[in-house]
């Protein structure tokens, strides 16, 4: 287990309960930037990557604003710790393999990360609890201002911020929210609800980002186009579309219990029963069952188990999160056994409504 202090404050965004926490796990915004005068990362050898890492790291360390950030060289972390940062949504899946000279600076509150040598020289990202894309983007803007004082960005009047892949060109901004849509999924209306996204320049991804499955009924909605639209326009479109989907999800949940009450109830209680008593469980099954539990919270079936508690469990059952807690549990249990054990103990603590 690493002794980096930032590891103690990761997942802090899960502590906050927001108005939309019942349908939006988290919001995120990131920008892509590159340095003037250096080749892009995909075409750089180790020597150039090292120079970029050294240069940016040095600038960040000297800056007042980033002085309190913790520098972590991903290649020096254990596989589990890297996976943990990914599960906490602080580094993207692509950085999990810990390539040499790929480095991350984490803010003391665990909400901001600056990534060096991912696909672009610099990527910075902000996490926010629930639906708060505007908050994430505005916090990101502050980081951008500070960063632009310390390094010279590759920029052109015509194309905006120049990125290794032209899909990120322009603002370099990718804003997203992780939606949880068990109601629409059960009613078979997700497809329909998300079909029009491309018309708005938006796209949908799964739980772990690009090319991942829609595990546990999670859908990540983000802007696809980064060029030709201002940051404000991008955010406005994204937020208004997300709000509409959240409304539809709310309707779907109400609809489920109004028209398919016994089936919906059965789904909730069956899931609860398995989570409460199972002895082995993989991540996918846990996410699927927890998703059904969301509907039970909606129906006030549980006295002391909230949407926020559920959101935390979604992260806690992830493999690396379980591994890091292993010390507290029996050492020789398999991971699936440890996961079932953790879920059993959490379910045991729930007081059911009469």
């Amino acid at each position: 287990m690493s002794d980096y202090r930032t590891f103690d404050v990761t997942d802090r965004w899960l502590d906050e309960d927001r108005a939309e926490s019942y349908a939006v796990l988290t919001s995120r915004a990131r920008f892509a930037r590159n340095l003037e005068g250096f080749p892009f990362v995909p075409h750089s050898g180790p020597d150039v990557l090292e120079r970029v890492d050294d240069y940016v790291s040095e600038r960040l360390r000297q800056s007042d604003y980033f002085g309190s950030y913790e520098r972590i060289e991903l290649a020096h972390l254990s596989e589990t710790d890297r996976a943990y940062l990914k599960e906490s949504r602080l580094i993207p899946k692509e950085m999990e393999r810990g390539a040499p000279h790929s480095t991350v600076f984490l803010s003391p509150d665990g909400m901001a990360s600056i990534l060096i040598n991912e696909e672009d020289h610099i990527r910075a990202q902000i996490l926010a609890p629930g639906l708060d894309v505007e908050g994430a983007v505005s916090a990101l803007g502050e980081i951008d201002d500070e960063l632009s004082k310390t390094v010279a960005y590759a920029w052109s009047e015509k194309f905006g911020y120049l990125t290794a892949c032209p899909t990120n060109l322009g603002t370099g901004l990718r804003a997203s929210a992780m939606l949880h849509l068990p109601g629409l999924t059960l009613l078979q209306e997700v497809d329909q609800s998300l079909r029009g996204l491309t018309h708005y320049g938006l796209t949908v991804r799964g739980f772990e980002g690009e090319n991942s499955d829609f595990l546990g009924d999670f859908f990540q909605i983000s802007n696809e186009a980064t060029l030709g639209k201002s940051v404000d326009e991008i955010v406005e479109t994204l937020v208004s579309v997300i709000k509409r989907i959240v409304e539809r999800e709310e309707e779907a949940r109400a609809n489920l219990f109004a028209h398919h009450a016994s089936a919906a109830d059965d789904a909730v209680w069956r899931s609860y029963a398995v989570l409460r008593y199972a002895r082995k469980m993989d991540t996918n099954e846990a996410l699927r069952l927890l998703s059904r539990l969301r509907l039970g919270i909606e129906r006030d079936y549980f006295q002391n188990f909230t949407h926020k508690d559920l959101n935390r469990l979604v992260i806690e059952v992830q493999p690396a999160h379980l591994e890091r807690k292993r010390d507290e549990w029996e050492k020789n249990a398999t991971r699936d056994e440890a996961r079932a054990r953790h879920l059993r103990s959490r379910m045991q603590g729930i007081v059911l409504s009469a």
Partner: protein
Amino acid sequence: MKKCERCGKDDAVVKLTRIENGQVFSVVLCQSCAAEQSPIQKKIYQKQSTSIDSLLKELLKGQHAAVISEAEAAEHFDIAPCPKCGLEFASYKSTYMLGCPECYIAFAEHLEDDLKKMHHATRHVGSGPPGSSEDLVREQRRIEELREELKTAVEMEDYEHAARLRDEIERTEHQLKGQKTEGKT
């Protein structure tokens, strides 16, 4: 009471509705069949996620077409490589990764089709970094204009005006130098 459409034995008590491709499919089921169908609905759900998945792949195909015709590929080899990093346009086309910031200048016109596919736009909207090249370019243009004016003033033998212009050019050049170093440090 209507019988369950699945087992045909028990009374149908639950109606499940599914909308696919604009068509509405409804099925009335008994309690136990509905419980089997509805709670997890594994099969239907998997089918559905695949359909979203394939839909996405379909959409992405337009953007990252990996397969290009030979004629197109041949055309790509006629494009001069980036003078700064030496990247060939054909190499960009196979990975969609550019070599360096200068590639955007070298391949500007050839990138337009891709940009349209990716963003439905070919120009940046919004601001740049403070002291960005936008400002620098503007200042540089201003200096060029002043030099032209200075030339005309000398030709016209308006030495007083020429002296003023010379001072302004020096001042602007000095400022520009300051901005450039500021941006680099």
